[in-house]
């Protein structure tokens, strides 16, 4: 399988008043053509910032170094003018709240057509036609009527469909979705997730799904990457991480998630709080909350090492973690 995106040594730093905070450290991963990669983590894990950096959308006080190779070009550090020709065309991103990405004073069809005119050089009429076709494709009810509406006239689910349509208009190789369904109702979320599955397989788009919801990951992704404290701590196929997790944080997340089919007596939460990025613990950032830690964990940070089965983990503990599959 071809690689569409190869990320090496990605660091994202933010300059604060008196100090600097590293939101992402030493991130390395590969995205293959047509696959769905889930990036899982909680607040402060750096999952969103990493991809904002790749898209060149960091806040003004943010700075990224490293490589994000899209084919032969490195997106990190690329001047905005040049980045514009890749964004939208080869790599696109959608966000949790569609309202902030849509211009409230322009009709939906104007905003969508603009993308085609600008990136593909379509003539206005052709662009309008393609817009309606895409809206049908994303399952928008009454596409012509919705195309003529303003964003605030649409419901949350419909706006998200518009976002997906906008992102896929140019058939990009990569679509990054940052918590796209978190704000949606469950039944609408199910429709959206189904839509992602259909479209990515129809268009052959590689999908990066950034989420904290393990249920979404289980239903949609092929591979997953777990992030904690700005670093990747475990990567691998979804089945591998769910049924045989090798990092205690992954295990902890699985145990913290209530399962709709089973009423467990108590959840087994991870004790303690997520680390402050300004005062990361020494050694492994997870060690204060880890039930498997020993002396080395306090002193030295474990690197992300490959293990058999085409997976990686960043942990000194070598034993198997006890896990019962939920019946």
């Amino acid at each position, binding site marked *: 399988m071809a690689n569409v995106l190869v990320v090496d040594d990605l660091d994202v730093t933010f300059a604060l008043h008196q100090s600097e905070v590293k939101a992402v450290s030493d991130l390395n991963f590969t995205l293959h053509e047509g696959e769905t990669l889930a990036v899982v983590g*909680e607040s402060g894990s750096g999952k969103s910032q990493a991809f904002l950096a790749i898209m060149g959308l960091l806040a003004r006080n943010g700075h990224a170094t490293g490589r994000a190779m899209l084919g032969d070009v490195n997106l990190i550090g690329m001047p905005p003018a040049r980045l514009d020709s890749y964004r939208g065309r080869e790599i696109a991103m959608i966000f949790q709240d569609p309202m902030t990405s849509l211009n409230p004073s322009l009709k939906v069809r104007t905003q969508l057509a603009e993308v085609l005119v600008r990136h593909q050089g379509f003539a206005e009429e052709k662009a309008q036609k393609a817009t309606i076709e895409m809206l049908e494709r994303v399952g928008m009810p009454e596409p012509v009527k919705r195309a003529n509406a303003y964003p605030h006239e649409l419901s949350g689910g419909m706006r998200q469909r518009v976002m997906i349509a906008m992102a896929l208009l140019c058939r990009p190789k990569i679509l990054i979705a940052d918590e796209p369904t978190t704000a949606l109702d469950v*039944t*609408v*979320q199910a*429709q959206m997730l189904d839509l992602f599955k259909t479209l990515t397989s129809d268009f052959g788009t590689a999908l990066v799904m950034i989420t904290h919801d393990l249920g979404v990951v289980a*239903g949609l992704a092929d591979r997953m990457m777990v992030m904690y404290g700005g670093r990747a701590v475990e990567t691998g196929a979804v089945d591998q991480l769910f049924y045989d997790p090798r990092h205690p944080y992954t295990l902890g997340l699985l145990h*913290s998630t209530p399962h709709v089919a089973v*009423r467990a007596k*108590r959840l087994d*939460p991870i004790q303690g709080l997520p680390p402050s990025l300004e005062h990361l613990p020494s050694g492994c950032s997870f060690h204060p909350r880890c039930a498997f830690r020993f002396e080395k964990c306090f002193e030295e940070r474990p690197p992300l090492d490959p293990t058999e089965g085409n997976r990686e983990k960043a942990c000194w503990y070598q034993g198997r973690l006890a896990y019962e599959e939920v019946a």
Partner: protein
Amino acid sequence: MNAHETTLLTIDRLSKNFSISSGLFSRPLTLHALQDISFSVKKGETLGIVGESGCGKSTLGRCILQLLPPDEGRVLWLGEDITKLPSEAMRQRRRDLQIIFQDPLASLNPRLTVGEIVADPLRTLMPELNGEERRKRVLKMMEAVGLLPEMINRYPHEFSGGQAQRIGIARALITEPKLIVCDEPVSALDVSIQAQILNLLADLKDQFGLTLIFISHNLSVVRHVSDRILVLYLGRIVELADGDDLYGDPKHPYTRALLTAVPIPDPKRARQRNIDGLVGEIPSPINPPSGCPFRTRCRHAIALCAEQRPLLEAVAGGRLVACHRWQELGLEGGV
């Protein structure tokens, strides 16, 4: 369930509407948030209330506590109709009826310290206590919810979401209430912190002998905490059943669709799933469909569903369903 189960709270045909202005020259529209809601809550149980946007679950929580006055119907607390009480008498009842809010930081006054926030209800509801006694209770409660006593003079903005929610819980518990309405108490929190807070609520429930009404849109969370569950759609009850019954054998088409839509953190099961996908979106509560509110998205709808609204019928085992066709449908098992 023992025979001496007391009913603490009974909701009888509760309705609530909101007036929305739709522009300078048009007549205001009516948003039907809740219609004809009736159920009761027994001592010691946790009643879960689930639904999606527009179902009215948050409004219901506030109507129960009289933070919003219902338009019709009664709320019977320990047999007394609290909708008719004068404000001073209602204030006294608040000792026993408390609420935990969804957004921990928004529900705490940023200008008060933790100690002052947690002690606030004691000022009006237990004025006989002096400053020293209040402080003692606050410290005891902080320990019970897992907050270090040193935090007592800190301000809300210095805490993370999970810790701030503990402050909210301490405040709700300070008067040792009998019933607490939890309005999406973990929705704004990270997954690992959610689990901590859910465990905390379970422990406190045992420790203080509480009865809980747990409102949430997250079906997995509701399943985990609740004994019985109430499903709302567009302001009406569609189904009420024990947790196991509801999740294992849903009788209402909406319940089934809802359950199959919930993402399961188990890849093998997720792949085998047969999602009962719903078409379309939730109608607006300003203009609910005639007859059964769910008929516009229901695959099993017939002509009768548009003409006549289904009433809540009793099914074996204390269950209630509002559907004309529940018996004949014999829906395949839930999750």
